[in-house]
């Protein structure tokens, strides 16, 4: 690979902050460029802010602004793929895969961070992760970036074993928190959890360690 370029591919504005912003910060501090390919605008999200400030028709505008702010905090580029929230699994996978392959090739990605298909809870996560794997499969072997996959489901470690990449992102906690907080309409539930006394809570601990499984085409 000629250069390092980390390309994060998730479907919703905020997936990058909750799921990978510690790792993103680590890469940026090492001088590696990071681009976020965001699948949708999260326009069907059910969090509308608390107290509510968005509605179904304005949510996408808020979420786009929030992602722009998070991207500024994380010092990354953002591109939108232009799909609609909740519908990715119903689009032809090969079409999404071709679209992704073009972007991945153009960006000369060395590492892709995406969701682990089948272990990512939200159907958009599973569908886009699967399309990423398919996109990279379509590439010539020598051009393929590594795929790091984020698993979320409760049974993931039982089924998949220990992840290949485990980062304690405590050193980047301030950056991660700032990125999450940029997602004003979405972050309230998580922020109240973080601010609560329950510092040992399982979800908070999960946020402080980012884990990824590397995809292997040979297995």
């Amino acid at each position, binding site marked *: 690979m000629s250069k390092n370029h980390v390309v994060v591919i998730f479907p919703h504005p905020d997936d990058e902050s909750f799921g990978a912003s510690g790792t993103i910060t680590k890469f940026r501090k090492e001088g590696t460029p990071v681009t976020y390919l965001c699948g*949708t*605008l999260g*326009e*069907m999200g*059910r*969090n*509308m*802010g*608390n*107290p*509510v400030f968005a*509605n*179904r*028709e*304005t949510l*996408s*505008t808020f979420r*786009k602004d929030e992602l722009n702010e998070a991207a500024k905090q994380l010092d990354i580029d953002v591109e*939108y793929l*232009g*799909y*609609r929230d*909740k519908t990715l699994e119903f689009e032809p996978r090969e079409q999404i895969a071709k679209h992704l392959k073009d972007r991945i090739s153009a960006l000369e990605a060395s590492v892709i961070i995406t969701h682990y298909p089948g272990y990512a*809870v*939200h*159907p*958009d996560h599973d569908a886009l992760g699967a399309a990423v794997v398919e996109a990279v499969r379509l590439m010539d072997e020598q051009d393929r970036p590594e795929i790091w996959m984020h698993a*979320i*489901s*409760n049974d993931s470690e039982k089924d998949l074993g220990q992840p290949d990449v485990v980062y304690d992102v405590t050193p980047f906690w301030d950056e991660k928190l700032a990125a999450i907080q940029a997602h004003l309409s979405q972050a*309230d*539930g998580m922020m109240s959890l973080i601010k609560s006394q329950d510092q040992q809570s399982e979800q908070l601990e999960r946020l402080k360690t980012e884990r990824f499984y590397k995809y292997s085409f040979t297995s």
Partner: protein
Amino acid sequence: MEKINQQAVQDKINELANKDVYIHLETTNGAYASHFDEEAYNVGAFIRNAHVRYQHGKIISTGGSYRVGLKLDIGWVYAEGVSDFEIDDKDRLLMAGHDREGRLMVALEISETPFSYEADIDE
């Protein structure tokens, strides 16, 4: 959005009757319901830009929230649990019900022009 003003909503429903309108109708408990609670079920449905014409419609108070029914020539549009409303800058009637944390549980929206259906990156 603000708390529903029943008369204002009824007036808007009346104004939009017997016209070609577009409906967004939705209910959801989120994609993570059974992730956070194994006993819970993920349920949801939405239809965006159903193109209909209703004869008449009514909003009924249940004390705190409301039900809305629109009578079509050959059917009905129905929503329960809406509590907030807005007539937005495109003159659309937006109604929604939220839980205690402000999360949307149900939405019914009526417009004379189609609701956005592309990703609206530049909107």
